[in-house]
């Protein structure tokens, strides 16, 4: 019996279940298939905060959201069109995010009295009309999965039960016509030497597919055509963590400097340590330090030795690295510090995202110690941002802080793989060694070139051995100096060197409708949401100008002019208005803040409202 097929431009699907239900796995597989099919997409995993909260409870719910479309898209989507709910807790935790009319596919087997209680339901929402505003499909996934696996040799009911997530995957794959081979290949590989699990999972996946194919339950099938407005090139999926790792690897390759990452585990920055630890083959050294202070010290020690020293952490760790970052500023050595921001203050909400470390990045050290601060805009952009951070650190002999956040590091999108030969070379410009007579001339480690940059002479270089330290030093010789005038000079020279970077920054690009009176200026991970909101605003026929900062300090040369060029400026941030404060101080422009501090990314819908309001 044929089914109607409807076309959709964009769809948001959310898989939700218990931590134990393997929702992240299902989400990942669905995403791969979707990517290969050629849709544009954006995803957002939503882990529970607890290691493993009691099964079936709300805190135990784990979800994965994917937004895919036949046109380029910018966010994982505000509200799902389809919610797959593997148990009552998953339904309850996510119901609020749905708009009426949305589709709910529920594993009815899981809606037992016990599970309902754990989720805090007194009655069964599948029956008491709670869901009357939605298109509800009740599917006995557990039963069907077990049945499908029956008689497969070696497969116990436990294996079968565990495979129900693959049933859900199969069902959704059918619903949106995702290719099945890639998923089946993955299952084959993954369980290569676990035949029972392989069989059970394959059976479950196929059962899910054919359930969609055969039952009356679902009468429509949807198609989302491949995205057409995508730039040609070879693509892969990356999340912010992977893109950052690749950006650092690229910087290492293009500078010829071996990479050392020293980190102390902390959510959500740990992933970068895990990822780079696997790349020893590319000459990467990783050290899990005893704490964040040591991690920063180890990275700086490696930099002293002529390597690309990197350390990554999150808020609490940034507090601890401050003193070492200040030392790096004084030593004028390259150091890349990556802050994957999370909701603060203090321990805060480790698994939630925020942009509240900007002013700390700028001012979170004693004394006058300016340094470049950058922020990544999208998961894929982490590649360029990390590469640029490393480039500035090496070429300007300075610590650089790169701001990412929990949202960027976990969410993924298709990423056009750059042609490595087109990546800029990074020149460490090491001081040459000296022998014989020449080496008897005093070596001056604090002389400067036109940009104010001092020589970098790692140990091992003959004839230029020297000593550096955290005490104020004499201009030129680098000898310890308490001379008042010299301190003023050195303070100025340190600042000018950083300020000099501005000269080589491209002007900040604006995407403006002519006649636009509102400039929306953002930074960091709100990029996608701002673009998406602007698209909606423009669809309403309204005019808006957009600009997004990668360089927070120094700022691009034209920022002041830009701010003054528009009657109104809106600055959306996931903090209490930190960039706004910076801009006001720099340019005395009365920018307006749209702030949100909930631990969640900004939503396109709320930004749309904010923009429209700002225009009134």
């Amino acid at each position, binding site marked *: 019996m044929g089914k109607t097929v409807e076309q959709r431009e964009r769809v948001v699907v959310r898989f939700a279940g218990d931590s134990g239900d393997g929702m992240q796995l299902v989400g990942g597989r669905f995403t791969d298939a979707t*990517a*290969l099919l*050629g849709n544009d997409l954006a995803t957002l995993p939503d882990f529970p905060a607890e290691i493993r909260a009691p099964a079936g409870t709300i805190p135990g719910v784990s979800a994965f959201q994917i937004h895919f479309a036949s046109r380029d898209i910018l966010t994982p989507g505000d509200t799902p069109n389809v919610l797959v709910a593997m148990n009552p807790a998953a339904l309850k935790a996510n119901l609020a995010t749905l708009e009426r009319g949305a589709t709910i596919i529920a594993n009815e087997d899981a809606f037992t009295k016990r599970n309902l209680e754990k989720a805090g339901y007194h009655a069964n929402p599948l029956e008491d009309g709670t869901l009357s505003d939605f298109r509800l499909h009740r599917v006995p996934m557990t039963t069907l999965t077990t049945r499908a696996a029956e008689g497969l040799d070696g497969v116990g009911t436990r294996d079968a039960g565990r495979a129900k997530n693959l049933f859900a995957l199969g069902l959704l794959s059918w619903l949106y016509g995702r290719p099945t081979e890639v998923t089946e290949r993955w299952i084959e590989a993954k369980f290569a030497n676990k035949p029972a699990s392989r069989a059970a999972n394959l059976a479950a996946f196929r059962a899910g597919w054919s359930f969609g194919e055969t039952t009356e339950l679902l009468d429509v099938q949807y198609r989302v055509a491949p995205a057409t407005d995508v730039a*040609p*090139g*070879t*693509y*892969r999926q990356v999340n912010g963590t992977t893109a950052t790792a690749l950006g650092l*690897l*690229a910087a*290492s*390759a293009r500078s010829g*400097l*071996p990479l*050392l990452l020293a980190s102390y585990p902390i959510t959500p920055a740990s992933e970068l340590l895990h990822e780079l630890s696997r790349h020893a*083959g*590319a*000459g990467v*050294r990783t*050290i899990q330090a*005893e*704490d964040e*202070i*040591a991690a920063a*010290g*180890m*990275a*700086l*020690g*490696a930099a*002293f*030795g*002529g*390597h690309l020293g990197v350390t990554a952490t999150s808020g609490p760790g940034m507090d601890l690295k401050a003193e*070492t970052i200040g*030392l790096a500023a004084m*030593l004028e050595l390259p150091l890349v510090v990556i802050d994957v921001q999370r909701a603060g203050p203090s321990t805060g909400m480790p698994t939630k995202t925020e942009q509240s470390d900007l002013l700390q990045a700028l001012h979170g050290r004693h004394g006058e110690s300016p340094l470049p601060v950058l922020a990544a805009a999208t998961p894929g952009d982490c590649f360029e941002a990390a590469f640029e951070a490393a480039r500035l650190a090496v070429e300007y002999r300075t610590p650089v802080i790169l701001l990412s956040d929990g949202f960027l590091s976990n969410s993924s999108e298709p990423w056009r*793989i750059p042609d*490595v*030969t087109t990546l800029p070379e990074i020149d460490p410009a090491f001081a040459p*060694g000296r*022998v014989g*007579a020449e080496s*008897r*001339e*005093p*070596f*001056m480690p604090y002389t400067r070139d036109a940009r104010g940059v001092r020589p970098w002479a790692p*140990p*091992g270089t*003959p004839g*230029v*051995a*020297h*000593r550096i*330290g*955290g005490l104020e030093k004499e201009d030129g*010789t680098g*000898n*310890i100096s308490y001379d008042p005038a010299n301190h003023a000079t050195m303070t100025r020279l340190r600042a000018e060197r950083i300020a000099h970077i501005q000269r080589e920054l491209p002007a900040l690009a604006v995407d403006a409708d002519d006649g636009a009176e509102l400039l929306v200026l953002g930074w960091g991970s709100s990029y996608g949401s701002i673009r998406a909101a602007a698209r909606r605003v423009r669809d309403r026929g309204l005019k808006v100008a957009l600009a997004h900062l990668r360089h927070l300090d120094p700022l691009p040369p034209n920022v002041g002019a830009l701010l003054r060029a528009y009657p109104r400026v809106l600055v959306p941030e996931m903090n209490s208005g930190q960039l706004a404060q910076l801009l006001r101080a720099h340019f005395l422009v009365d920018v307006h803040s749209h702030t949100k501090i909930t631990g969640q990314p900004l939503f396109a819908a709320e930004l749309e409202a904010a923009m429209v309001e700002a225009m009134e």
Partner: protein
Amino acid sequence: MTAVGRPPANGNGALAKADFQSDQETRWCPGCGDYAILSAVQGFMPELGIPPERIVFMTGIGCAGRFAYYMDTYGMHGIHGRAPALATGLATTRPDLSIWIVTGDGDALSIGGNHLIHALRRNVPVKILLFNNQIYGLTKGQASPTSERGKITKSTPFGSHDRPFNPLALALGAEATFVARSLDRDRAHLAEVLRAAAAHEGTAFVEIYQNCPVFNDGAFFELTERDTREASQIRLVHGEPIRFGVDRAHGVARGADGDLQLVDVADVGEDALLVHDAHREDPSLAFALSRLADRPTEPTPIGIFRAVERPLHGAAAAASDSAPRTVADTTMLDALLHAGDTWTVA
């Protein structure tokens, strides 16, 4: 700091003490024990046969920390207590260098305690020289973690009431592979210990009793001055029975309860004496020796307590490299970027 001329870096043995003296005027108080140690180290360096540019001195903050400026090698005067962390980063990436840490009792054992014990645990290839003057010198006389209980200092006007660390015992509890003690005022002994430390592959931990004439004068005179040192230095020599004192009349032996004790050789006879074994895998003997003296005002062991080889930090990683230590070239980088599922849009 400026570097003065030196022979071409061919590692030839023609180096002299002068090659390790920087042009910086030393700035310690008159009579400070640091002068003697500096001179001993500069005098010993040529023995290494390593060109000065492949030697690095990393220091923390304190009077001892100034050491880096006076060595005409590469040097970093870091921040307080963090030299072991800085050095670990350097040692992990630059196995070709000879790396020396100079630190004080406050720098190493107070603010820097955590980095110290972890460097020892990891067996990072660095030499740690701890100048122990049992006081905070640079900050002008506060109690340190090695100051004796009851000590009156600026920060403890009623006397310090905390038990001090025994640096060697702490190091041994932290898995140290090389542990030794020497004296600022015994140049020959110090040189000997430095020699052994340099020869040790992993982390070498050397405590050097150092006199601070300004804030803690005479703390170690019992062990260093002509009239008392013979009676109170217990010189440890691997493989030899432990004897000490005037006419070597005393020795160390195991008591009935198994604890170590000081004995008169006359009473127990030479054979009853404990024979020092620095190479024992089990650190318990070295630990027991480190506890022999509570304070350096009584008979105190000096020399090499423990020296055993163990895998170095980073060595395993090096081994695990699927490729030789290198930076990704264009091809390798291209491969990394294309790892996993990719698709092409025409």
